[in-house]
């Protein structure tokens, strides 16, 4: 309720006649934009929790998805532009069935789109118009949009899986990978290094280097950062005996639980509207599986 109150409050302010007609001063316009944007971000917490409850089979595991909203009004979306695999959750807020076109901004390449029943959906890739690319405030790598038409039942959602195919081969700087491996691999792993492991996995010398890293550092506290990196896991498991693999998996299972706590703290920190009690409530929000 207190999360949603932020949006209720902002919507209350927007009933002012100046907000409705646009006769407010420009700095007031900017303040209205700030108020609304912050309130919508806050309200997204509820949507995220709701969708997590619906999509999660096992409440002991951390949420599968980190739901993000995108600036589709300028054909930009950080998730779809930067990820080779992503899920789009589409909700119909109307009380009747709709058939609507959906447009997802993406980078170059080919994509396959799967409906929630696992069947491939007919799609069309359409280049983003130059006029949109030239919008001065737009920050986006998207060059085209995936277009598909979706049927949604009343007040229902669909989860659409999109994956990139025929991935364009990127230039890989092996030198960077080696120079950072000792300092960062077991410590503060950043996204670019993870990507590079994927990119250079056909490079035998690099794989050998990873395999040569002693198994012992897995017990370090810092290693929790490597959780859920399947590509790394496969490489790490290779050449290990069953007992070692079991120990590795146990470690990763434990570190996932730790990760969940950290995630919650991070979410709370990014919402300055809430006081300490409210933030605690958010962090402690239990997630349970509801069956309809």
């Amino acid at each position, binding site marked *: 309720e207190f999360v949603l109150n932020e949006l209720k409050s902002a919507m209350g302010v927007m009933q002012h006649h*100046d907000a409705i*007609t*646009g*006769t*407010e*001063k*420009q700095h007031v*316009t900017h303040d209205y934009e700030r108020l609304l944007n912050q309130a919508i971000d806050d309200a*997204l917490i509820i*949507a995220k929790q709701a*969708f997590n409850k619906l999509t999660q089979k096992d409440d002991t595991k951390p949420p*599968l*998805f*980190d*739901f*993000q*909203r*995108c600036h*589709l*009004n*300028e054909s930009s979306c950080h*998730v*779809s532009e930067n*990820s080779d*695999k*992503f*899920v*789009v*959750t*589409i*909700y*119909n*807020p*109307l009380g*009747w069935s*709709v058939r*609507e*076109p*959906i447009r*997802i901004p993406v980078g170059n390449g080919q994509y396959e789109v*799967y409906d929630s029943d696992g069947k491939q959906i*007919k*799609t*069309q890739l*359409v280049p983003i*118009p130059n*006029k*949109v690319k030239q*919008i*001065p*405030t737009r920050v986006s790598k998207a060059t085209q949009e995936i*277009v*598909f*038409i979706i049927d*949604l039942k009343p007040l229902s959602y669909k*989860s659409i*899986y999109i*994956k990139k195919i025929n991935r364009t081969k990127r230039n890989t700087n092996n030198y960077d990978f080696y120079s950072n491996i000792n300092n960062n691999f077991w410590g503060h792993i950043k996204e670019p290094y993870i990507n590079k492991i994927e990119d250079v996995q056909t490079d035998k010398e690099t794989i050998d280097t990873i395999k040569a890293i002693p198994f012992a550092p897995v017990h370090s506290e810092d290693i929790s950062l490597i959780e*859920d990196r*399947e590509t790394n896991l496969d490489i790490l498991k290779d050449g290990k005996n069953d007992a070692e693999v079991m120990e590795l998996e146990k470690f990763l299972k434990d570190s996932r639980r730790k990760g969940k706590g950290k995630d919650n703290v991070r979410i709370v920190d990014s919402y300055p509207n809430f006081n300490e009690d409210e933030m605690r409530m958010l962090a402690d929000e239990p997630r349970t599986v509801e069956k309809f």
Partner: protein
Amino acid sequence: DDEAVIGNQFYNLDINTASGLINKVTLRDHTKLNFTINMYYYSGSCGDNQGTDRRSSGAYIFRPLANNPVKLATQRTELINGDLVKEFRVSLSPSGFTNTKVYDGLNFIETEWIVGPIPIDDEVGKEYVIKYETNILNNGAFYTDSNGRQILARKLNFRPQWNVTLAEPIPGNYYPVTNEIYIENKDLRVTVLPDRSEGGTSLIEGEVELMLHRRLLCDDAFGVGEALNETAKGLGLVVRGKHRVLISKDDITIKKNVLGLHLGPQLLFSDAKNIKYDEW
């Protein structure tokens, strides 16, 4: 070779890729209708607000300098042809863009419009409008919903309660459009559904006109105390929106599309780098 046709099960549009014009629409029952989409701008007046004829166009009032708007020139056209969507993109000068789309199996013509940054190098404010021009004879009558609930009949240069002579024939015929504006004859109705509240009118027979974006350099002295001159990175805003055009008298289709535009599907995105397709 410049002539082309884009269409779906409901509408076929005859277009000219050289001029950037749509010429005609053919309906499902083979009825043909002259139909074109053009963008124009009115120059905003800038006065000292000391008399009714010296008022500026501003946040509160629309007061064009002349009654004839300037038509935007076609700069470049692009045709996108596919199974799901067909698009006719027209870049217009200065600072305009229209993208007319027809989707497979969907009963509307969608116009995506982009306006901005509105140039003010000539120190003249500008108010951009889009016109849907047809050969329907509507006898000066058009219909707007104004409050999103009730459709009201409007008549050009007319007030139902008194005899009116409009000193300002353009703004005097503008009305609020919340969900829809339409014109009709006995057989056909041309409805335009905006994705937000806009001002609208029908100044010429067969036309529907909607205000899209305004950038003005003088205060109209009605209280806001500054000109409606929004900047973004110093250039001026770029505004992007959609209209859906329906040529039909089917009320249910119209109402469904109104709400489809205003309360369309909500999208949330999640990275799935740790989720394989099979697991999903």
